[in-house]
């Protein structure tokens, strides 16, 4: 009798975990990068070609990486929301200027407003490839330990900001 009850016992334990799982926050978007450390890189800054940036510098902070380009029309659509968002939050937004020309990128920011704490210049798209970028714009949320926590594909909208980004940032900031 006892050994026939083993499957039941295992299932009971499983059930407890599934129950706990229900109360946890589901992660947002499927990506093999979720939960993984953000790939390291060192790139020059878009507007100051003599300075570099690497994600290491933001260790201990929650920050966003937004992939954009001046040739990308969806980025233009997302831009106002991003500018408004930058005014609401204290977390730094880093722009990854993806496969663009330096002058074009700078001109774009001058004209449309600059929501970024800084932008880095990824002229050949190598860093973008490391991040698994397959459509611009994309946005990554990176936690204090340097792990990617969320990846958004496509333009950030005011709804996404309100329902997804702000709650997540608040949660990570207090974690």
């Amino acid at each position, binding site marked *: 009798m006892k050994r026939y009850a083993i499957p039941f016992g295992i299932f009971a334990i499983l059930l407890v975990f599934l129950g706990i799982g229900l109360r946890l926050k589901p992660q947002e978007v499927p990506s093999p990068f979720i939960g993984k450390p953000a790939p390291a890189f060192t790139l020059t800054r878009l507007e100051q070609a003599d300075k570099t940036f690497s994600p290491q510098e933001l260790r201990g902070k929650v920050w966003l990486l937004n992939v954009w380009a001046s040739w990308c029309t*969806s980025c233009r659509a997302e831009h106002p929301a991003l500018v408004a968002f930058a005014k609401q939050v204290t977390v730094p937004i880093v722009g990854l200027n993806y496969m663009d020309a330096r002058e074009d990128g700078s001109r774009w920011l001058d004209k449309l407003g600059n929501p970024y704490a800084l932008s880095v210049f990824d002229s050949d798209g190598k860093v973008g490839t490391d991040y698994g970028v397959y459509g611009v714009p994309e946005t990554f949320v990176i936690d204090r330990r340097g792990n990617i926590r969320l990846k958004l594909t496509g333009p950030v909208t005011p709804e996404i900001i309100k329902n997804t980004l702000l709650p997540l940032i608040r949660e990570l900031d207090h974690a």
Partner: protein
Amino acid sequence: MIPELGNLALVLALCLAVLQATLPLAGSLNGNGRWLALARTAAVGQAVFVTLAFAILVHAFAVNDFSVAYVAANSNTALPLVYRITATWGGHEGSLLLWVQTLALWTVAVVAFSGQLPRATSARVLAVMGLVAIGFLAFTLFTSNPFDRSLPAPPDGRDLNPLLQDVGMIVHPPLLYMGYVGFSVAFAFAIAALIGGELDAAWARWARPWTLVAWTFLTLGIFLGSFWAYYELGWGGWWFWDAVENASFMPWLVGAALIHSLAVTEKRGAFRNWTVLLAILAFSLSLLGTFLVRSGVLTSVHAFASDPRRGLFILVFLAIVIGGSLALFAWRAPAVGLGGRFALFSRESLLLVNNVLLLVAAATVLLGTLYPLFLDAVGGGKISVGPPYFEAVFVPLMVPVLLLAAVGPFVAWKSGSARDVALRLRPAALFAAVSGAAAFLVAHLSPAVAVGLLLGAWTLGATLQLVVRHLRHAPRGTPLVARASRQGAAWWGMVVAHAGVGIFVVGVTLVKGTETADDVSLRVGGSARAGDYTFTFEALEKVRASNYVGARATFAVAHDGAPVATLHPEKRYYTVQQMPTTEAAIDRGFARDLYVALGEATRDGTWTVRIQHKPFMGWIWAGCLVIAAGGLLAAVDRRYRARRVGVSDAVRAAPEIAIQVPTTSRSA
């Protein structure tokens, strides 16, 4: 007005399901014949109303009734009609209704084909299926009603997710669900057997074809999902060990174990408890998969928008169904008994070993799938377990499975001679060793690839030997057809499926071991190489369809300067959902696939392009199809269509074995 009728139909179906689940079960216990007879009527009635509800939902999509919230969320006037219809199962609510609809189809099939079953047994089987239907109908009605209105109706819908606007969407979910839900029949048979305490060869004979058909559907469903991902997700990968893929793969593994276990129970009366447990587990894992997809506890490309209330509902349902059946198992299994005895080296013991290995493999997949959840639950942070874990754990488990699967059919039931089998399998062993050595020494492939090829060759070689031996082992002058038909379709199904496994293993090994991929930046006129092939970016044009705009490229592929193929990958931007998709272009061949996918473009017209050369990719698909063909062949064995068989103990079914297994003669 029509959607309200759909709602009503679902309510009526739920009432009938309650009837179907209760009175026949009670009747089977107290001998009330009228209550027993209700099972079939209630089951058919339930199925009719579910089908009506499903048809009404399809209709709402076809006529763009955006006052139905679910339609508005998953369709759009610009969507072509065929995708509007398939959008019916494009979201959580509708796919749940598809689940219920599939269960209704299986229920009707059981009603239609259970004539030879004792009335009490068929009533119990239908009652158990009714219980499952209650759970899912209630889930649909109370948490996820697809007929909910949103008034005033929006002028247009939010469109179907672009990734789902594909032929794959038409067939992948229905086939997969036919598999998942099909295991409910084997499950219902197992529960009925536990309740009645009758578990014999006849029982296994009834349960076998149902299990085989469900497993075949599941095989096809998984295959199509993988095939679809290969060309649609744009990466050229075909299996990602994603949580939901795993959720379909686990019941497949357990189902494979169940098929083999059922064979032993039917032929030898052995493994009875084990068979019942596997039948419960196969369906439990199907339900668990449903939970994982819809509760939002795990992330996946397949996950539906989640809602904790739904998760809780399914969790309670899981607890009742799985917990209840495992408790029933713990209580009743000791009464069922173990069945026939067998020696250490016998077909039974080899099948048992493979059964255990398959179950362990399923358990490792389960562990890998739920590990992130476990860790998160105990406060260990969020992590994701990727392909490295699964490849490191799962693949080594498959090595003994493949080695033994080839040997099994050569070993006699009850007690076999290891020496005889070893001698007989010399040709297959030689073929395998030569294949492996040639791969390593001549083709200079890696040791892992050589081992993979050795295993594939071993499986194919031994299976071929089995066929040759069978065809030769007959009196001189017997025509080929007569020689072949000395074994039933079930045996041939086994042979075909094992050959399919061999083909699949060769394909996977060569793709994994020798594929080449490159991400390059190209502008029109440029070219790049993958393997021995040159891909030239010849032209680029704009395309425009009703719900997307995009770019279509032309690539010419040449091998040693000779043109091989022209490929047209596309990059699309779906305007309603504002989502880009990549439509890869693939030239398929017997020994290689050529693959081009467009990445991003820069303003100066340079595109990132992913080009790949995948040797023997087609063998993976062919292997899956051959495995499914084997499953189907085994299911149509004439033996299962026989009229009511009076044999109720395993021993009397045994004489068949003498014919099926030409003992240990060395004539072959």
